[in-house]
Each structure stands twice: as structure tokens, then as C-alpha cells.
């Protein structure tokens, strides 16, 4: 029995001396109040047990000068343990005072002990009081440590929680052992048995303490499995995000759960908040994260990375018990930092691409890239739009492009591409394509052949939609051709007559001379009107005609127009324009419009012409109606285009520009000009203007 007791005692000493050594080494290596108190705690306990080994039971009783420091260390042990606990979070004041008070009294008592009774002698009263106080101190302090650590473990990450609760259990166990040891008398055989049991229990608390403050790697790995899995899934998530906010928003909750923090925030390099999780104050900046707003129960932990700073509001236990978790956090932070950098590059690339696409859209220029010999040609978004094709369904290949190419341009297009590829030169071509709806578009392509990566031949180029330019060019060419045509008759007459008159006027009768001069006058006037109209039209198209909008009394302006155009013989005109009616227009230009409509009605219409005006819902509709044959069907669609001209019934031909000018003028008044066919026959032109208040 004594042998067993002896062995157990050595084991116990070894365990606690080892713990003490580990705690002291840790403190030496890393310092800090927490580690310091822990080193003191287990250093004291280890020292007591080592000293006890020099005085085995049955040997001589050690002198009081040896016993007193040992007793002091035993009394200090629970206090050191309590201070270790207190280094995380201040204990309530009463507990702090009680701990200090009772420990002080016990230390004083230790110093005051006059002597110890010999074996077999009854214990003096002061010693019983001392033992009672000792039990009270151990129960209070070790109990407080056990309860507080146990409760603080709630909400901590798995590893920290288990460490704290293991420490809590170990403290409770040791307190239990100490209290029992102090109260068991050493005379009976039972005492030997209970001594053995207590020693075994004390030894058992050793590994528990070790697991609490210096857990072996195996245990760490087992306890941290859950957090590691969370870390892995967070890393996987990070790899797929492309938006920094998305990255931060996805990361923070995981991160907070790994270290069981209250909240976390990520700041940019310039200190702006990228994202936050938990009750982080909105006004928190990197310079002043306002962690105090969360109270003293939380400790701010900062981790800086190349392009971001992570601030975590963790529990006060985190820096000690969650050291490993902070390492995990650091790993995650590095991953997040990489992911953020990737997001930034991705965004820069995307915004560059978007700017390019926008520029292409504005310029209506698409671009493409093709490696000859491969099937698919790479198209920009604008090129799909130019072709009217959906990128989801249309796959640009040479064959597909030949299909949409206009049959007349197909061969030259394909030959142009082949020639460029063969000669490795730059190229330029113009061709027409069919849109899916059947419309034709004219495209102008520029391209060049380059040697791409790996030395393969690569063709790149741009395609511009020039349909509108070509249409406008055609309109302009047609306008010039028409204008030249219109000038032929006046020019032929003017030059021809002038030559005849210059050389042969003496051979001509007076009547013929009169006819010749009249023709000169007519054709000169015709050329003048034509040129003025052409100038008007070009200025209207360039929006260079000054338009002065004012309140125009319609009756007055119609009367002036009526006076300007001579009423041909056999025609009648009826004016039905109410006196007070006014419209918003340029008065001189509105008169020009009405004059044109009246002269058209006289020239192409029947016997009766009617000019009317009426008000309808804030608009004024002026109409000129005749009972002639009406505008021929084939001219209805183009009558407002320049040089569209019907066959005059009476009088001289017009320039073919009157209606084109009138329509543009009415447009400039923010009005609308339209034509209605009359039943059974006749023409009506309507001018819809805004009524003047």
C-alpha cells in the first residue's frame, strides 16, 4: 500500500512539475499576463510537489522554515489560477476583494503559525481554523474559475470552448481534491485508501489542465474539425466570386463563425469599408473602428493583408484560447486578399470591356477575330447587333456569314478574305448582308492579318454599319442629279435664245421676238426659284434656317398668301378661316407653306379650291382642299421628297421642291403636314399646328 502511494506521489509530482515547466516555458516564450499567471499557478504547484518529494512520509518532519513557504505556495495556487482567469475579464468587485482578502489572511496565517503538531498529536485550534479558511479559499477561487470558464465557453469556437471547459473541469477537480485532502484525517486505514483516490484524482486533473492550456496537436485537430470544414467551404466560395462586395459578404459570416466573433469588417487599403457583418457601427472607419461601441466584453483583433485590413470583434478569450482560430483566420484572410485582388482585376477587365462595347455601340462598329482553319469567328457584342443576330443562337462561321451575305457580294467577300489570308495583307471591303427579318444592311469592313500567339495566322478586323451613310449618299447623289436635270431646260432656253438673238435677231419677226423674250423671262425666273428652293431645302436639312416662333393670326397669313398667288382664270377659291384663330409658327415661313399649297392646288387641282382652319384640342388644323384628280397613287409615298412632281394641269411646272420644303418647315414649327385623298376625287393637304393661347 505504501509502495503504491509512493509511486502515485512520484507520478503526481512528475505530472504537475511537467505542467509547471510547460507553463513557465510558454510564458518565457510568449509572455503576456495570462501566460504569466498560468506559469505562476503551475510553477507553484509543481514546486510544492517537488519539495514534498524530499520529505517522504515516515521521514523526519521538515522544519517550519521549509513548511511555511510550501504552505504559502499552496495558498497562492488558487489565487494565481483566479488571476489567470481574471486576466481575460475582470471579475465582479466582491469576488475580487474576497479573493484578495482571504488569500491575504491565509498568507498572514501561514507566517504566523508558531509550530506544527507532531504525528499523532491533536491539532491545535488555530490550525483547524487555518484548514477551514484554506478549504474556503480553494472552494471559492477554484470554484469561481471553474464556473466562469465554463460559462465563458458558451458561444466560443469548438476548440476554444472545449479548452475552456476542460480547464474548468480540471480546476473543479483539483479544488475537490484539495478540499478533501485538507479535511481527511491521516490516522485511519481508510485515510490511506482515500489518499490514494485523491492522488489519482489529482493526477487525472493534470492531463485535463494540459488539454486546457496546451492541447496536443492531435486534440487540436479533432476539436477544430468543424471550423476547418467551414474554412474550406469559405475558400471554395471565395474562388468563384467575381465581385469584391460579394466576396466580402460571403466571407464575413463564415469568418465570424470560425472565431465566434461578435462582428467583423473588411476595409480597403484607403480605409473605406468594404463590408461588415454583425453589429459593427456604420460610421466605423479603419482609423477608428469604434470597437468600444460593442462594449468591454469584446476585443478588437486586426489582421492586415496586402490589399485589405480585417477587423474582428472577438471575445476577450479569443487571443488566448482562439490563437489557432486566429491563425485559421489569417489563412482565410490571405485567401480573401487574393480573391479580392482577383475580383479587382476581373472588374477592371470587365469595365474595360464594357467601355469598349459602349464605344462600339456608339460608333456602330463591331470587331471580330478569326484563326483561319478554325470554325468559329469571335464577334463583339456590337457585331451581333449589326447583323441583327442573337449571340445565344447564332454561331458566326465563314459558312454562316456567306449565308447572310447578299448573293451579289458573296463571292467577292469570300475571295477578299482568302486573298488577305494568303497574302497576309490588310484588307478593306464593302458588302451587303441580310438581317434575319430580310432587311439589307451595307457594311464596311477593315481588317489585317497578324501572327497570333504560337505563331498561328490570325485575322482581326472591324465592321462598320454604313447603311445610313450610303443611303444618305444615294439621296444626295439623286438630289444632285435631279437638280442638274431641272436646270437643263432653263439653261438650254436661256443660252440657246441668247445665241439666236445675238446673231439672228434681225431675221425674226416682232411676234417671235416677243415670244423669245417671254421665254427668257420665264426660264430665268424658273432657274431663280429652283435655286432659291434648293438653298432653302439644304438649309432646312442642315437646320440652318432661322425660325422665329410667334403667335400667327391664321386669317391674316392666309389672306397674304392668297394675294401672293394669282388666281388662274376659271378657278374659284373659298376661304373659311375664323378671324380669332392663331397658331404658333414663323409668320413668313407659314405664309410660304400656304402659298405653296395654294399654287399646287391651282396648278394640279380642279375648279374649286377651299382653305379652312379649325381648332381641335389645343391644335389648329389648316387645310387646303381641291376637287382635282388628287395625287397619283404612285406619287403618294414620295410626294414630300425633293423633285417629286406631278403633271401640271395649267400654268408652268413647279420646281418639285415646294412640298419637300413645306413639310420640313412645318416640322420646324413642331407641327405635322399630311395628305388626304378626297372622295370621289381631289386632294387635301393638312397642316397641324399648336394653337397659340
Amino acid at each position, binding site marked *: 500500500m505504501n509502495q503504491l502511494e509512493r509511486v502515485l506521489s512520484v507520478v503526481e509530482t512528475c505530472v504537475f512539475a511537467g505542467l509547471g515547466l510547460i507553463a513557465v516555458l510558454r510564458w518565457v516564450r510568449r509572455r503576456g499576463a495570462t501566460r504569466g499567471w498560468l506559469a505562476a499557478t503551475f510553477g507553484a504547484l509543481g514546486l510544492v510537489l517537488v519539495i514534498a518529494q524530499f520529505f517522504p512520509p515516515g521521514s523526519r518532519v521538515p522544519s517550519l522554515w521549509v513548511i511555511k513557504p510550501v504552505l504559502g505556495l499552496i495558498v497562492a495556487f488558487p489565487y494565481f489560477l483566479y488571476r489567470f482567469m481574471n486576466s481575460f475579464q475582470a471579475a465582479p468587485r466582491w469576488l475580487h476583494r474576497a479573493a484578495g482578502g482571504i488569500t491575504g489572511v491565509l498568507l498572514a496565517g501561514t507566517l504566523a503559525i508558531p509550530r506544527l503538531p507532531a504525528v499523532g498529536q491533536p491539532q491545535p485550534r488555530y490550525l483547524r481554523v487555518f484548514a477551514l479558511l484554506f478549504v474556503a479559499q480553494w472552494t471559492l477561487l477554484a470554484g469561481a474559475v471553474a464556473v466562469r470558464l465554463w460559462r465563458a465557453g458558451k458561444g466560443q469556437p469548438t476548440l476554444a470552448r472545449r479548452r475552456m471547459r476542460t480547464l474548468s473541469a480540471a480546476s473543479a477537480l483539483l479544488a475537490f481534491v484539495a478540499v478533501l485532502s485538507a479535511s481527511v484525517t491521516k490516522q485511519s486505514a481508510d485515510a490511506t485508501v482515500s489518499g490514494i483516490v485523491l492522488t489519482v484524482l489529482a493526477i487525472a486533473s493534470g492531463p485535463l489542465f494540459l488539454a486546457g492550456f496546451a492541447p496536443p496537436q492531435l486534440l487540436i485537430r479533432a476539436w477544430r474539425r468543424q471550423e476547418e470544414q467551414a474554412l474550406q467551404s469559405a475558400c471554395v466560395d471565395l474562388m468563384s466570386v467575381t465581385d469584391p462586395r460579394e466576396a466580402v459578404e460571403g466571407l464575413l459570416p463564415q469568418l465570424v463563425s470560425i472565431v465566434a466573433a461578435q462582428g467583423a469588417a473588411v476595409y480597403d487599403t484607403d480605409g473605406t469599408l468594404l463590408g461588415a457583418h454583425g453589429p459593427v457601427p456604420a460610421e466605423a472607419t479603419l482609423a477608428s473602428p469604434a470597437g468600444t461601441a460593442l462594449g468591454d466584453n469584446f476585443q478588437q483583433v486586426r489582421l492586415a493583408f496586402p490589399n485589405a485590413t480585417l477587423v474582428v470583434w472577438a471575445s476577450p478569450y479569443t487571443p488566448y484560447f482562439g490563437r489557432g482560430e486566429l491563425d485559421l483566420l489569417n489563412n482565410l484572410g490571405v485567401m480573401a486578399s487574393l480573391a479580392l485582388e482577383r475580383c479587382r482585376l476581373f472588374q477592371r477587365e470587365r469595365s474595360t470591356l464594357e467601355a469598349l462595347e459602349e464605344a462600339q455601340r456608339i460608333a456602330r462598329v463591331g470587331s471580330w477575330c478569326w484563326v483561319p482553319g478554325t470554325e468559329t469567328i469571335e464577334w463583339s457584342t456590337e457585331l451581333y447587333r449589326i447583323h441583327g443576330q442573337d449571340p445565344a443562337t447564332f454561331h458566326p462561321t465563314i459558312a454562316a456569314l456567306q449565308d447572310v451575305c447578299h448573293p451579289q457580294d458573296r463571292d467577292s467577300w469570300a475571295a477578299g478574305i482568302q486573298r488577305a489570308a494568303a497574302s497576309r495583307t490588310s484588307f478593306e471591303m464593302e458588302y451587303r448582308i441580310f438581317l434575319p427579318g430580310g432587311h439589307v444592311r451595307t457594311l464596311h469592313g477593315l481588317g489585317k492579318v497578324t501572327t497570333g500567339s504560337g505563331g498561328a495566322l490570325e485575322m482581326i478586323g472591324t465592321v462598320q454599319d454604313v447603311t445610313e451613310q450610303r443611303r444618305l449618299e444615294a439621296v444626295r447623289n439623286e438630289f444632285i442629279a435631279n437638280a442638274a436635270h431641272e436646270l*437643263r*431646260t432653263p439653261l438650254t432656253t436661256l*443660252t*440657246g*435664245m441668247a445665241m*439666236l438673238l445675238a446673231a*439672228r435677231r434681225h431675221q*425674226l419677226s416682232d411676234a417671235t421676238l416677243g415670244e423669245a423674250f417671254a*421665254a427668257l423671262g420665264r426660264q430665268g425666273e424658273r432657274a431663280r426659284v429652283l435655286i432659291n428652293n434648293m438653298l432653302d431645302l439644304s438649309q432646312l436639312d442642315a437646320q440652318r434656317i432661322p425660325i422665329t416662333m410667334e403667335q400667327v393670326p391664321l386669317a391674316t397669313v392666309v389672306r397674304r398668301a392668297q394675294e401672293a398667288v394669282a388666281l388662274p382664270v376659271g378657278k374659284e377659291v373659298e376661304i373659311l378661316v375664323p378671324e380669332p384663330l392663331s397658331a404658333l409658327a414663323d409668320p413668313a415661313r407659314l405664309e410660304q407653306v400656304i402659298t405653296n399649297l395654294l399654287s399646287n392646288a391651282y396648278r394640279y387641282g380642279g375648279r374649286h379650291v377651299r382653305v379652312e382652319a379649325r381648332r381641335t384640342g389645343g391644335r389648329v388644323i389648316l387645310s387646303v382642299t381641291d376637287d382635282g384628280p388628287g395625287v397619283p397613287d404612285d406619287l403618294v409615298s414620295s410626294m414630300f421628297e425633293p423633285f417629286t412632281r406631278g*403633271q401640271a394641269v395649267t400654268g408652268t411646272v413647279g420646281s418639285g421642291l415646294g412640298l419637300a420644303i413645306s413639310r420640313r418647315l412645318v416640322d420646324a414649327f413642331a407641327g405635322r403636314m399630311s395628305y388626304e385623298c378626297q372622295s370621289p376625287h381631289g386632294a387635301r393637304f393638312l397642316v397641324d399646328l399648336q394653337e397659340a393661347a
Partner: protein
Amino acid sequence: MSATVLVVDDEQDIVLLCRIALELAGFTVLEAGSGEEALTLLETACPDVMLLDVRLPGMDGWEVLDRLHALPAFEKRRIIVFSAHKSSAGRALEAGCRAMIPKPFRPDDLVRTVRSVVEN
């Protein structure tokens, strides 16, 4: 006896110019303002030369030429066309016309062309 020339043009002043120039050169001039009018006139008259404008309202010059197939009295090769476009020359010659006078023209060119057609 002087040769007779039929001038067909809807532009009255062109017709007038042709009449003065041709009469001064000794030709007799007949006038028509449209294709229909010319065809009606040809039913009774038989001019030596016909000056025909291609661009006429209603029935145009080419249609007049087609209709003339039905009138054996008049030979198509005695026809001279007026045309604004030089490109019409080939078509005019294909249609059996003798010459083409582009507009604008000078009176002496007109007279010279008509005279050459009459003399051959």
C-alpha cells in the same frame, strides 16, 4: 421644198427655241406637247425628221417609239431623241433612232444634226 421637222417636248420654251432655230435654217416646224399629241399628228402629217424628248409626262418617248412600229408611213431612222442622260444614246440607237441630242444643247448643234439626218 423645205424639209418638215416635228418637235415633241412638254417644255413649251424648248419647243419654241427649236422652232425659231429650225425656221431660221429653213425648215418647216410642227409641234407636239406630248406623246399622244405627236401620234395623233403623225396620223395626218408626214414630217421628214422627228425630234423626240424621252422624258414626257404620260406616254414617254420610248413608248412613242414602240407605237411608231405600227405606223409604216414613218421611218424610225429619221428620229432624233432629246435626252438628259448620255446613257440613253445606246438605247436610242438600238431602237433605230438616227441620233441623240443631249440637253442642254446649242441651237447650231441642233440645226447641224437635223440637217445631217435630212441630207442622208
